[in-house]
């Protein structure tokens, strides 16, 4: 999808960003973009490639975040040490939830995922040992470097960049492998895929579990950076919707679509918050909402697709030069 030469340039931009834009605000912004991109890319596996629009991925994000902070609170581990716990729980929940809900088609699936996410949010709000409505906190002062508690956002930036690279590599591998073909076939027509003998249900569940695991990673990283999670910030419907919006805005089902969506949406939110937040609270999200509406209206398939199309057309022209 992208020419070989484009990758190193792309990598250098991502590696160099926090060194060029080196104010704390810009570095923090960069880290937040990457963190959101991790979540949205994880969502993309099931939502973009397989076309199963989950609006309940906050459950898995919450598993990661709560896993990290609960294992600090009860086992004394550094929060990042709770990541495997969060991932395992997340995969378990995906398996339990996936079996009944993945049978549902289209909108029904989306609605069921919303309901499950709200269910989990409400249950967690009432569980005392998970902090109830108050939530959980991380170590107030870093005990060891492993607590990954930094004042600067720079270490987080590179940590998140590394994880995002892994997530994208996994996605790329999947895209090219058997499972990628199955998922796209399911997306195009589940019935056709099934009639041609594709093990549809099994692969949908695999994709769902993989997506859940990676989303939990995003949640754990969130908890490591912010050192805090409560039902709203870890399991709220906005978490799920933001993943969907980023992927949709950039281009769902494209490797770099979610990253592009994050590059647009996160700065939009943070900038308008810092510019307008003081003057007129509320206007921030009015602008944010209006811009999303305009993009959905003008580019319903996401912003990345037309760009890729234009690039492809140009390279086609070069190849098809008359001889």
């Amino acid at each position, binding site marked *: 999808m992208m020419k070989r030469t484009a990758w190193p340039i792309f990598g250098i931009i991502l590696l160099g960003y926090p060194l060029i834009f080196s104010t704390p605000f810009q570095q923090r912004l960069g880290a937040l973009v990457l963190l959101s991109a991790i979540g949205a890319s994880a969502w993309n596996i099931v*939502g973009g490639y397989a076309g199963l*629009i989950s*609006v309940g991925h906050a459950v898995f994000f919450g598993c990661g975040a709560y896993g990290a902070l609960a294992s600090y609170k009860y086992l004394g581990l550094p929060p990042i040490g709770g990541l495997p716990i969060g991932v395992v729980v997340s995969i378990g929940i995906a398996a339990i939830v996936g079996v*009944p*809900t993945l*049978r*549902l*088609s*289209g*909108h*029904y699936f*989306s*609605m*069921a995922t*919303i*309901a*499950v996410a*709200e*269910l989990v949010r*409400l*249950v967690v709000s*009432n569980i005392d040992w998970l902090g109830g409505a108050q939530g959980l906190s991380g170590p107030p002062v870093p005990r060891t470097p492993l607590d990954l508690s930094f004042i600067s956002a720079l270490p987080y930036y590179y940590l998140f960049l590394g994880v995002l690279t892994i997530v994208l590599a996994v996605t790329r591998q999947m895209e090219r492998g058997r499972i990628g073909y199955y998922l796209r076939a399911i997306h195009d027509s589940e019935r056709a895929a099934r009639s041609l003998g594709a093990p549809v249900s099994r692969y949908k569940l695999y994709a769902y579990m993989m997506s859940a695991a990676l989303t939990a990673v995003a949640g754990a990283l969130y908890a490591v950076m912010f050192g805090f999670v409560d039902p709203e910030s870890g399991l709220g*419907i906005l978490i799920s*919707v933001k993943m*969907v*919006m980023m*992927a*949709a*805005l950039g281009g*769902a089902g494209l490797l770099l679509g979610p990253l592009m969506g994050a590059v647009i949406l996160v700065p939009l939110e943070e900038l308008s918050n810092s510019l307008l937040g003081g003057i*007129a*609270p*509320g*206007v*921030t*999200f*009015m602008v*944010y*909402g*209006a*811009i*999303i*509406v305009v*993009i*959905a*209206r003008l580019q*319903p*398939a*996401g912003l990345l697709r037309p760009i890729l199309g234009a690039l492809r057309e140009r390279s086609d022209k070069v190849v098809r030069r008359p001889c």
Partner: protein
Amino acid sequence: MFSTLIQVIAGGLLLGAVYALFSSGLTLIWGMMNVINFAHGDFVMLGMYVAFVVWSVMGGGPAAAVPIAALALASLGVVCYFVLIRHIMRGPMLAQILGTFGLALLLRYSAFWYFGTSFRTLPETLVGGTLLIGPIRVESSRLLAGVVALIVTACLHLILTRTALGSRMLAVAEDATAAELMGIRPDRMQAIAWALAAAATGVAGALIANFFYVAPSVGETLAIVAFVTVSLGGFGSVPGALAAGLLIGIIESVSAYAIGAIYKDIVVYALFVLALWLRPVGLMGKA
């Protein structure tokens, strides 16, 4: 004990009727255009604010607020249809989520910006007092809401199934191209559907405002209730939305009474997931 239970069920039925009303708007556009409207709860929120403004500006009660909210929201619905929905409805489902959620944010934060975050309530004297119907005590504001909601939902159903307009709308829902060849304008029918759906949310909002707090964020909660109601009832089915709304109202109030108010939503969502598992197309949906 027994009379308390009847009391609780009656309360649930009245609440459920209002759920049914604003969900029937959602199910109408969902069934007709296959569009998920994430801004639906915020339409209801605006209807509530209309009732608040009608009261605070001219001291009017529901008799004034309901028609004004219906008209205001219907106009908003038509505007939204022509500016946004028409262009995204043929696109992928993700574009619909993106567009309507953007719209939701726009509406929610416009209200936030204009009215502030504080919770507002209408004075209880507006629709005052409680009534005794046999052994059951009901607040008259809830009774009014439930009864009007039932009537409006029934009218919506009759419009869809018994009038020429309804047949045209269903024809467009079935096959827009074929309908166009028969001389029906799909655009106009879909705009009317949006107007009707939005008017239903306006009426619901204006009614709910009499016994519920008004705040910009209230739409989010209501949207989830509407989603659950519509998918439980089956997309596109007004009777389904009615049955599901009443059912959810009863389950909510009975479980709030039996195991505690904080668990009522948990019970509703759990039963919803279970119901979808057992019957994947909702109670009255077509496969």
